[in-house]
């Protein structure tokens, strides 16, 4: 008995050690980027065009490009994803078709991001002749975040208790009215969480936009959705591998802006979820 107690202590110590091995590097990564990136951040850096072949000036067009892409991708992904989630949660039966749909979603979530890039290039840029443009990039990113939005929206819809639906139906509401006025409003926090997580993912991905929208160096703002645009993650890739002699400060500054943008969105999503769970009435 004493022996097995000691084994337990040793085992738990190693489990704790493994956890530290993940947590400490993550903390370090964030601390390093904040520490070295902060000195680069000022109003000029955030609001100015890049200059001298990206070795000076700011990252304004990359920030704007990323915002356009994120909004564009959610514009495509949210309606389709939400309706797909409604189908799975409210209409689908437990049959072969549903099984295949779920499998397709799992697969979409697992397709490598660079393959989405290839797909976007073949379908939107070449086949539909949208060219390398914000439109092509948004559509590609939109398809990539679709599984995130479907999965989290479905969970949110399914967590609405069945009694809500039954009461509404028994009062003479149609199925769609029940969904529209009873189920959806109660699922909004969950849907919002999933949407924000999708936004964060779209903001940080590089590979899908490499050949569909990203401009190497474009010191002006895009004028239409058929324009190319710079984007933060691609800009970070470019200035850290493709352009020699870029000031460390600019690299860290760009990494910090991207990291803060993505982590901020995730934090908002976590907080919404937390608040929602606390206030849940059922």
């Amino acid at each position, binding site marked *: 008995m004493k022996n*097995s*107690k000691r084994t*337990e202590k040793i*085992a*738990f110590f*190693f*489990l704790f*050690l*493994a*956890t530290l*091995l*993940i*947590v400490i590097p*993550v903390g370090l*990564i964030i601390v390093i*980027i904040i520490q070295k990136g902060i000195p680069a951040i000022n109003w000029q850096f955030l609001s100015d065009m890049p200059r001298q072949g990206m070795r000076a000036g700011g990252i304004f067009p990359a920030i704007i490009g990323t915002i356009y892409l994120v909004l564009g991708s959610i514009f495509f992904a949210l309606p389709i*994803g939400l*309706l*797909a989630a409604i*189908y799975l949660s409210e*209409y689908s039966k437990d049959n072969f078709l549903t099984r*295949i*749909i779920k*499998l*397709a*979603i*799992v*697969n*979409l*979530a*697992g397709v*490598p991001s*660079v*393959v989405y*890039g*290839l*797909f976007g*290039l*073949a*379908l939107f840029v070449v086949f539909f002749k949208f060219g390398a443009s914000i439109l092509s990039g948004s559509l590609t990113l939109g398809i990539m975040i*679709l599984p995130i939005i*479907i999965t989290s929206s479905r969970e949110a819809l399914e967590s609405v208790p069945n009694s809500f639906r039954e009461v509404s139906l028994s009062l003479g509401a149609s*199925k769609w009215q029940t969904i529209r006025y009873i189920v959806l409003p109660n699922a909004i926090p969950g849907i919002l969480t999933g949407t924000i997580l999708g936004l964060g993912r779209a903001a*940080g*991905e*590089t*590979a899908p936009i*490499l*050949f569909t929208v990203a401009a190497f160096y474009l010191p002006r703002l895009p004028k239409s959705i058929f324009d190319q645009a710079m984007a933060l*993650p691609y800009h*970070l*890739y470019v200035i*850290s*591998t493709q352009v020699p002699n870029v000031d*460390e400060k600019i690299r860290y500054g760009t*990494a910090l802006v*991207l*990291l803060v943008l*993505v982590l901020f969105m995730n934090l908002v999503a*976590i907080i919404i979820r937390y608040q929602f769970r606390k206030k849940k009435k059922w």
Partner: protein
Amino acid sequence: MRKLKEFVIEKLILFCGLASILIVIVIFIFLLKEGLSLFNTISPLKFLFGKSWYPISEPAQFGILPLILGSLLVTVGAAIISIPIGVACAIYIAEVAPLKIKEILKAGIEMLAAIPSVVLGFIGMVTLVPWVKTLFNLPTGLTALSGSIMLAFMAMPTIVSIAEDALYSVPKTYKEGALALGATRWQAIWRVMLPAASSGILAAIMLGIGRVIGETMAVMMITGNSAILPHSILQPVRTLTATIAAEMGEAVVGSEHYFALFAIGIVLFLISFAINVTADMFLHKKQ
């Protein structure tokens, strides 16, 4: 009128429900459409097992064996690092950690999952790469090992969160039964919980590995990108994903090189398809 409106809406919902299937099929068709053109000039065997990848020399050679081995080497390295640490962390979060710490750890793991791969690639370049270079006294720190370490951190969030779910969904009575029979908590975890959650944990590991194989940016930035047959983990390598990302920008649409990169895309798509279907089967077996 209302009937008609609802009819239209419900059809729209059905269509969107089917959209995922449609998208998977369209992705595959477009990869095939562009990728299969390569095999008009090169045999699939020569493509898969050819030892040289010289896409722009005359005559061009499109053998992806070095790239497959590059991906494999980096992936195996990342798996060796991330599986034990990831599963151990999942056990710690699910079974050992106090409730408050558990919530914080889960949020931390989610944060790690959210860090964009290009940021991890960048931080790997400026911290890990010089460190590997001096530690092993190498001409360059851009090696398969650096890639493996960085990718392990991208696989861990997937492994931890899915394995933790699997442990969490084991019925409480299992553990209580073991404890009631006088087992220590560790014995209950090791002999009862882990076997009961094994298929879910296996799925977690597979999905983590899937994430590693598909990872592009970080790997492109820190593995050195040389498309030669790798002999050691301390050498620069190039993966399948990095090849597409690095070369598609220069490939002319409709050229042999362009087709070859799509053919690599087909290989990647099939690998991820196989991994996800198998992992899904394991997850379903559990229920």
